[in-house]
């Protein structure tokens, strides 16, 4: 049986790269501590593949024809896409893909009642994949990447309950369909509170963010689903905060585990609340 050996969630706000040098020390520390822990623990877990759920910011499909889960099946994933380079301010990268796992995921989820879509050509990556890949230097390891770009912003998008169903199907897929000795890492990329392009572009909902992180760390899924509804996400920043839904398939797949977070910052110029979680898979209740 293939094993889930690592699971984490973290934001990918471009400003944690582009405005990092201008940020106050305590905000820089949160970014550094969070991504250092993810980088070190991901490597230590020795995964063969990381399946990364990351929201698509309308970068790959027209708004009139918008997939809920788009799997990248390419052999290599290069980014960031041209227009996003100066905006993020990150370096170029080419991460190793895993077409076999990506295609197996597509077939496996389809058989389990989850509509996903695939694209063979290099997806257009913005901050969603580019920030975590370059912050962890994933492209400089042998770990392969299967990106799953999730719709968290074009309504109606899959809600928290649906994302949990997707995560349960994902777990079943990993246990039954992947090769027996395979080691799998799961990563949710997105959030925390922000309202990209909206009137509250500079507002961060610290109460939401801190409570969300607390619930993720606590590992009580019933409490999480009760409080962190799409309605509450939208209240904390329309069109952006719901990116935290990319963490939900990960949490559902690993079951109720305790997690650790590495601080929180709501520095306004990041235009996004920042904090991440790594779940301790051995502490499943």
């Amino acid at each position, binding site marked *: 049986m293939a094993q889930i050996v690592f699971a984490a969630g973290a934001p990918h706000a*471009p*400003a944690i*790269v*582009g*405005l990092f040098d*201008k940020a106050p020390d305590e905000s820089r520390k949160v970014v550094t501590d969070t991504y250092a822990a993810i980088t070190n623990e991901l490597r230590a877990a020795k995964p063969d593949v990381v399946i990364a759920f990351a929201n698509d*910011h*309308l*970068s790959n499909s*027209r*708004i*009139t024809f918008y997939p809920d889960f788009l799997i990248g099946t390419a052999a290599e994933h290069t980014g960031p896409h*041209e*227009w996003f380079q*100066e*905006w*993020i*301010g990150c370096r170029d990268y080419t991460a190793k893909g895993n077409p076999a796992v990506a295609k197996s995921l597509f077939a496996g989820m389809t058989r389990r009642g989850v509509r996903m879509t695939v694209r063979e050509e290099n997806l*257009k990556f913005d901050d969603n994949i580019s920030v975590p890949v370059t912050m962890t230097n994933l492209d400089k390891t042998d770990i392969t990447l299967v990106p799953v770009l999730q719709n968290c*912003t*074009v*309504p109606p998008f899959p809600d928290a309950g649906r994302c949990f169903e997707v995560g349960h199907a994902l777990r079943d897929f990993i246990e039954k369909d992947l090769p027996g000795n395979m080691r799998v890492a799961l990563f949710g990329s997105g959030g925390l509170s922000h*309202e*990209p*392009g*909206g*009137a509250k*572009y*500079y507002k961060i909902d610290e109460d939401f963010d801190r409570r969300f992180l607390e619930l993720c760390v606590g590992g009580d899924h019933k409490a999480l689903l009760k409080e962190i509804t799409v309605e509450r996400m*939208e209240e904390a920043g*329309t*069109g*952006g905060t719901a990116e935290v839904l990319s963490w939900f398939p990960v949490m559902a797949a690993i079951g109720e585990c305790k997690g650790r977070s590495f601080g929180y910052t709501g*520095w*306004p*110029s990041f*235009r996004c609340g920042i904090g991440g979680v790594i779940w301790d898979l051995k502490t499943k209740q």
Partner: protein
Amino acid sequence: MAWEKFNPNLAAHDLVQDMKWNPEIRKEFKQNEKAVLDRYPLLLEERKAIEERDFRKLYDLGMHPYLGGQLSRFIWGNDAGKGAVEASNKLVASLQGHTRDIPKS
């Protein structure tokens, strides 16, 4: 913004997507915005709102704010430290109906 106004049929969405995916269109938009806008079936008031940089109006017509934010970056700047900050300041000022700069923190 609430989603009840969202209108996925607006041609402005395709305009932003095409500029994002094609540097030639971005260049042309800078040099001859009218020629680019002429190629899209924009509603009269949708076009007027783009020309007047009236993002409040665009959102009231149903534009998706994420693509609105990107439109502001085609107009005012896209680089991390400077242009994109100016773009978001002007976008927010338009949405909030004033012309002041938004404080940085």
